[in-house]
């Protein structure tokens, strides 16, 4: 388990323009700079928000990453729910899903 390294990858990506350029130009090379499991590397390579959420990436780090990827708000929420369905509950951290996947806004229900 290298959640620390996974989160550090995203922390650096979220705040460093140079890392963002490298993400787009040399993602495999950027990933290789961190000690990640195959599952973690795959989640980054695929931009798999659901799997990253289940792996325990802090929600604030993940939210900024989703914004960087240009993911719309309600899609971001859906990706996390789908991650739970596919991979089970959040494995670490304090950003667990507690509402059973329900929506808490009329705006999401009305889209």
């Amino acid at each position, binding site marked *: 388990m290298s959640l620390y390294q996974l989160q550090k990858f995203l922390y650096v990506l979220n*705040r460093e323009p140079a890392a963002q350029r490298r993400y787009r130009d040399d993602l495999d090379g950027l990933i290789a700079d961190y000690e990640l499991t195959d599952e973690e590397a795959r989640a980054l390579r695929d931009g798999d928000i659901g799997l990253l959420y289940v792996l325990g990436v802090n929600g604030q780090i993940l939210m900024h990453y989703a914004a960087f990827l240009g993911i719309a*708000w309600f899609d971001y929420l859906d990706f996390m729910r789908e991650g739970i369905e596919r991979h089970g509950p959040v494995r670490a951290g304090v950003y667990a899903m507690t509402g059973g996947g329900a929506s808490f806004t009329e705006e999401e229900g009305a889209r």
Partner: protein
Amino acid sequence: MSLVYAGVLSHAPGITGRADLVKNVARRDEFYRMLDHQREEIEASGAEALVVIAAEHFANFFMNNMPAFCIGMSDAYEGPIEDPGWLKIARTRVPGNADLSKRVITAVMQTVDCAYAEEWKFDHGIMVPLHFLTPRYDMAVIPANINCQGPPLTPLARAWAFGEALRRACDAQPEKIALVGTGGISHWPATPDSGKINEAWDREFLDHLMAQDRDALMRYDDDVQTYRDAGQGGFEIRTYLAAAAAAGGPGELQYYTAELPIFAVGCTVARFAID
């Protein structure tokens, strides 16, 4: 001069970023008007600088070196770190005041161990408040951070002591200084539960806060009560505690609504008497 204004307000990124998704437009605009009123109060106080006690979200500090407290010490900052189109706040430079920061930090450190930072990239936790309170970015900002994100978190009693130290530090300066604490109360941000709000918990907490009931406020327990009833977002009450401690006087809850869950937080505006 001294501390001339103290208050609290919400900072959730949806307040700006999801403004166009809101169904309850009347309530949204009512909240915006109260934020504008808070700006007017700060301006009327004659404040020359604004201390923003924030709960940052991994824009600057990570688990390799996480300070319990940090204060910015630069003549300029930049933000937002997030995609500007997502937050709907343009990336900009925000004026600081390194000299004033240094004097404030020096005074705070007499009683509270505090890190300082000559670089600071603002995230939504500071940019959303500034968007409403200093929309022309024409007031020096002094960012201050309390660790509300990476456990072990800053203890509540230390957050209170930090606020008291900031008050003494502000009162020792010749400038007029305003201070706001900004965070969420109960909320489950950045999870599928986004929009969940425990209004009863919020109102009880705000009652304690406005009454300066330190004993009641110190009884909130992160690991059990707050996490269960107010979510991990509830850890950000530290910023409100620090603002209350800095002010010393009773608070006036000027606005609260749980009717804008698309903003993912109970939207709050309050000020404290300076006592």
